[in-house]
């Protein structure tokens, strides 16, 4: 939260509609995303009750567990879901190309596109993670055998859920988070977790203000919860009698069938409003122009997808229940580096995100008031082209002299703050530029910001940061429990209760 975003929320209150907090889209939206809306049975540990899943608005498959406490029915649900989800994922494994890897002309294989799972909210992403956990260790043979697709589903869902921890990854997206990254509503972040209310603020129906639409969206009768938790009143008044009817023994097949159809219809009615909202949310996001660095991050997602596809193809084991100490430390280090790079990339792509940093003094913007494009620094052994420019900024300037800064408009050129003069609300900043101007001692045309040009500079960098060094698994120090035992899938994992 920054003052720029907070102010947008205040504006949303007075204008009665959500306000943009970005000028570009920071997420990749797939051409054919797979939407999943899921419901669980209250009180149980991630017991699926129903789901609607599909890769087009008109092809939502309804999956229902007639008796959610029945283990066989749970696995039947998992198998049905597996065929849809795994089928969808594998459809992206047909086309691959070679891309450059590293600087020495090496190449690696990358699928040309990757799957994207779209869920309503972070809680459903949590459902995906736990469903992955409860299915990935199963086996298709032996006692407690399950459909061969079930453990594959578990591994993919776990892979997707783990990727959500990577800042900027778009393989699994929660709609509320994706929308809240681009719009500020006139309500709180807690209330933004309600997809229908959030959409009400962003895209209110004709004749309603965002506030009215959001208020209407809080009525669970017209807008059932987006899951995975159900509305308790629905549970007590509708669901419980229908489930009881489905599990009544000794009755005619006709009546049994009617009971099952009634249950399916009731659950379809709970899921459909959210299903439609999801596709509207996707359309809204698609309508935004993509940021310049979105495609690059999607390439990393494709790499991760390719890598895990190969791991599965080569018969790799399922993800362990918990990371070992070394794996966890290395993963955390990688997430931190990605976080810094993602923050910088968003600021580079989007002046409105950069504005947050301008307000806190980590960036500044203004107009070029003076330029010496052909200045040469002759103090060293070699003469170097080091143009000077002066930028007049009205931003609160808090960057120290000598600090290196970069302009999002010219990421290949570095600048150093030489001096600052003037008053706080109108500072003149002199910058010395290096790089990105050609090889000659005179700058290539247009490579030095000209007088009158609007430009901004920031201390954020998206440059490569070396990864931390960590010991091998086998050298895990005793402070961290010593070398961990090698993970061998056990029969306990395979036969674990799911009740």
């Amino acid at each position, binding site marked *: 939260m920054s003052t720029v975003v907070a*102010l947008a929320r205040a504006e949303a209150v007075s204008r009665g509609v959500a306000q943009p907090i970005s000028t570009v889209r920071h997420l990749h939206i797939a051409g054919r995303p797979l939407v999943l809306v899921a419901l669980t049975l209250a009180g149980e*540990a991630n017991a699926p009750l129903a789901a609607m899943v599909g890769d087009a608005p008109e092809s939502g498959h309804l999956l229902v567990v007639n008796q959610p406490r029945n283990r066989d029915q749970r696995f039947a649900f998992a198998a049905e879901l597996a065929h849809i989800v795994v089928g969808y994922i594998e459809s992206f494994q047909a086309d691959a190309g070679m891309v450059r890897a590293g600087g020495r002309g090496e190449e690696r294989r990358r699928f040309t596109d990757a799957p994207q799972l779209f869920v309503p909210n972070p809680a459903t992403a949590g459902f995906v993670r736990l469903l992955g956990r409860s299915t990935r260790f199963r086996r298709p043979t032996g006692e407690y055998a399950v459909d061969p697709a079930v453990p594959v589903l578990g591994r993919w869902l776990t892979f997707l859920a783990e990727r959500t921890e990577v800042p900027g990854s778009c393989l699994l997206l929660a709609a509320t988070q994706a929308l809240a990254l681009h719009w500020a509503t006139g309500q709180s972040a807690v209330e933004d977790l309600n997809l229908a209310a959030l959409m009400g603020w962003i895209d209110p129906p004709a004749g309603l203000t965002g506030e009215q639409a959001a208020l209407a969206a809080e009525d669970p009768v017209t807008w059932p919860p987006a899951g995975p938790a159900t509305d*308790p009143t629905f549970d007590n008044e509708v*669901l419980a009698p229908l489930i009881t009817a489905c599990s009544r023994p000794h009755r005619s097949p006709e009546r049994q069938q009617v009971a099952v159809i009634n249950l399916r219809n009731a659950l379809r009615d709970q899921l459909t409003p959210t299903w439609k909202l999801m596709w509207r949310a996707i359309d809204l996001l698609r309508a935004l122009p993509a940021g310049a660095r979105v495609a690059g991050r999607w390439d990393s997602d494709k790499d991760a997808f390719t890598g895990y596809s190969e791991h599965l193809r080569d018969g790799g084991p399922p993800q362990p229940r918990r990371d070992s100490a070394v794996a966890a430390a290395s993963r955390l280090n990688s997430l931190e580096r990605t976080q810094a790079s993602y923050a910088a990339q968003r600021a580079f792509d989007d*002046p409105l995100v950069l*504005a947050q940093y301008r*307000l806190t003094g980590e960036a500044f913007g203004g107009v070029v008031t003076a330029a010496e494009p052909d200045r040469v620094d002759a103090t060293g052994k070699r003469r170097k082209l080091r143009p000077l420019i002066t930028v007049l900024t009205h931003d609160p300037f808090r960057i120290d002299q000598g600090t290196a800064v970069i302009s999002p408009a010219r990421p290949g050129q570095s600048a150093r703050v030489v001096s600052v003069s003037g008053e706080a609300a109108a500072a003149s900043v002199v910058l010395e530029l290096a790089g990105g101007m050609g090889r000659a001692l005179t700058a290539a045309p247009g490579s030095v910001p000209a007088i009158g040009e609007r430009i901004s500079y920031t201390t954020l960098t998206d440059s490569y940061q070396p990864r931390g060094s960590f010991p091998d698994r086998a050298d895990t120090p005793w402070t961290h429990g010593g070398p961990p035992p090698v993970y061998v899938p056990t029969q306990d994992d395979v036969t674990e*209760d799911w009740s």
Partner: protein
Amino acid sequence: MNAVEARLDRIRGRVAPKSHNARTIAALTSNPGCARRAVMDAAGVDKQRLASYVGFPARFGQSQFAIGRGNAFESQVKANGCAELLRLLREQLALAIPEVSYDNLDDVGGNTSLPVRHARTRALLARAASSAEDAGTLFDHPLLRLEVGGRPVYLEPDLIAFQLRGSFHVVEIKSFPVIDGQADGDKVAAAVIQSAVYVHALRGLLTEIGIGQHAVSDTVVLVCPENFANRPTAALLDVRRQLTVLRRQLARLDRIEALLDVLPDGLTFDLEPDAGGVPRRAPAAVADAIGLVEARYAPECLASCEMCFFCRAEARGRTVSLGRDVHDELGAVDEVSIVLGLADGAAEPSVEQAEAAEMLRAAARLRRECLGDVA
């Protein structure tokens, strides 16, 4: 009855006070600065009914599936004289618990009256505490008593207290799962604060019979289902921090007088029921009465307080209804209209708003610059 109690009775009106349970007491700690909530809770007002009456019913329903699962899990852990629980305490927590007996305090020889059950609980705990060795008894459903706002409240916890090495321990049984050693943080936090209420009440009871605070451990045992199965697992939790918060908030309710002093004398939430119990008072008049007691609304209230929708509607146009972080980022300026006025230069900042105004003007300028005429 003293003056404060009489005053609270008048505020509540002609209905019996709503009784507290560990959950409602735990909720007291979630927004300690709210005078409205403190007065209503001290007076024993039925907030759910009041909120519905003025047109803002809260939605805190519980699914029968969740209740059923909770009860089933609890009875499983307690079956056969708590066999399963003892196994956990001995094997998982490595507690050296000797042979034990099991005392169910649900009733006393068939008598279920609260004072009788409380007296029995007291007597049994006193005997256990004064015996030299570990008495080795599990107490199920002990009936505890706590003073809330000067009024005794009976707490009927779904718990077992047992004594080990001279101190009592509280066991809390919850049906949310612990998966690969991790549970939902919010649910654990709620369980911890509820356990703290029990520890506090148990300490109160022992203090009454002359036994010191140390006799109740500030470490509680949390029992939950493990992974996706029904098999229970146990963990020890430290509740010291929650105890401090709870004590402070309960002490505040005891000083409710100070809050009452600033309220108009005739204040009441009475619904003026007729002979048949049908309320006759105009909802608008009741809403006005509620408005006389100052609330401190924050979006977090939506998760815990029955008055939340009323207070939210009342806080419309105030920055705090957008979240405390938003309120802070806006320089702690209270009104949205003033924020916007300061941002576009239409409003003249007061001395204490000067810094906030500068920040807001800069933010507004940056938004205009980036969005052009759109914003």
